[in-house]
């Protein structure tokens, strides 16, 4: 468990009497790019919200970066970065002002140097002093990644990161995700329902179905286990049909 970036045991969440996640047992090793797949409403966002401490679990345990999410939520928050689906910012503030705000909240005292570094890494210079309210979806997504990594987190959580992006934007984002993992050794936990994205980006996958983890393996093991299948879509549909049966 100590090597695991993320470890959950019997993690459950209900909204009132509506269960959203049932006893999730999941381990994601450090340095992985993990893709969590599932239909809309399968419990993906609930899982990310629990792991990022935005939600409190109804039952079960979660450890993120070796820290107990229930006992030391602020410790977890120091070590994670988060990019929500449809990220929004303070529109009256510029790129740098938004990033400075989030960096300072993460404990960086003089964040300007780090902000410059991150914007250069993301190839997003030249928009530093423009107000975020004027940005396109793709530009916002870059600022979103920048705010998620400005404090050099160990684990990055991405909720449907390519949602609403054009094909070029999707490709750029995929390169960034792989780069962050390769260059900075960041563990990445990604929620998506786009199978092609997972095939090209992830080193391991999990499939959530009706709030339960129906499948979890490395991409390598997955392609070995389903040799006759042509795509992850087929695997996904096969797992779903097995579960339904």
């Amino acid at each position: 468990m100590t090597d695991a970036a993320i470890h959950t045991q019997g993690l459950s969440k209900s909204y009132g009497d509506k269960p959203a996640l049932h006893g999730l047992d999941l381990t994601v090793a450090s340095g992985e790019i993990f893709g969590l797949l599932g239909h809309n409403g399968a419990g993906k966002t609930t899982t990310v919200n629990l792991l990022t401490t935005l939600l409190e679990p109804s039952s079960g345990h979660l450890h993120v970066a070796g820290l107990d999410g229930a006992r030391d939520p602020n410790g977890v928050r120091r070590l994670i970065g988060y990019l929500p689906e449809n990220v929004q910012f303070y529109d009256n503030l510029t790129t740098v002002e938004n990033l400075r705000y989030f960096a300072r909240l993460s404990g960086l005292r003089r964040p300007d140097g780090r902000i410059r570094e991150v914007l250069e890494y993301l190839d997003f210079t030249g928009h530093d002093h423009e107000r975020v309210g004027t940005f396109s979806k793709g530009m916002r997504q870059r600022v979103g990644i920048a705010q998620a990594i400005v404090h050099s987190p160990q684990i990055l959580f991405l909720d449907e990161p390519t949602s609403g992006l054009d094909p070029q934007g999707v490709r750029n984002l995929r390169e960034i995700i792989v780069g962050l993992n390769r260059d900075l050794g960041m563990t990445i936990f990604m929620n998506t329902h786009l199978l092609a994205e997972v095939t090209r980006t992830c080193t391991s996958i999990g499939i959530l179905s009706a709030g339960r983890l129906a499948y979890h393996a490395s991409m390598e093991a997955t392609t070995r286990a389903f040799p006759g299948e042509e795509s992850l879509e087929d695997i996904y549909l096969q797992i779903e049909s097995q579960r339904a049966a």
Partner: protein
Amino acid sequence: MTSTLVVARKELLDLRRSRLLIVLLGFLAVAATVSVLVQAAQLRVSIDQYHQYVAALRASGSTLTAAPPPLFPLQLLRGSVEYIEVIGALFAIVAGYGVVAKEKQRATIELLFTRPVGRHAVAGGKILALATAWLVAVGGIMVAVTVALVLVGNAPLQPVDLARLALTGAAAWLYLVLWSCAAMGMASMARRPTTGLIIVLVLWLVVVLVVPQIGDTMDPDNQVPGGLFKSLQITTADEHTVMAHVAAYDAVRNGLELSSVTKHVERLTFALLGIKDMFNQLPVAQVLTKTLANSLSLLAGSALATGFAVLSTTRRTLLRRQS
């Protein structure tokens, strides 16, 4: 820098760039200043008339002297204080609602709460920003009306008058912070911020307009313009004797007025500025002693509203789903 200060700094920057807030504050400042200008112009006319009268008296060879009209230049601020009480409170509600509603509706709160912020840092930072914004706004308005008093009203202000103005400004500041905190707290607590806004607007209607209006209407002295007792040339001592016969009625009327924090602010500021005749000859310390209950009520109201905002602006309420 603590997370409370980080949040406060960002909120101030956001407020400073909010066109809506700038327009509202500008409107309030202009309304308050114009009110002083109009009253100051009227004061100049009455002073000129007095001088003309004295000159005419001298020209006629009369040895009679004419007593100058009572001059209490701070009384000219009556309209400005009323603008702050009514419109200022409304704008304070808009500002307090805005700092929470924007975060909830745009989901920026999720980015905020995945950061290691302290338990009350978000609430504390937002309140600190609102309090600072109102301090600047009230300070600006007080400077504008003072300049108008001096330049247009030719008001010979003494240091004690400046102290009265500063105390009036402090009361106005506490009052506006109270309304901003009430709005912030309700917008946080309600599942939908707009529901919170509606509740505070209803509260504003009752506390600022309805209750004081009922109190004023019930006041026997208000039945005639200029005051019933004054128009009947009844002395203050006799007025008290008359009112003793309707003590129960007056207690109900007074109690009703005292349930409104706006009325407390009005009584305190009107006393400080000498708008109420019974206070305009008293030193500041005595005015403050006589209006201690009003000051304490205002302080208690502000403390309650601030506490309410702190306790209701939490992770749980801000992250609660709106649907």
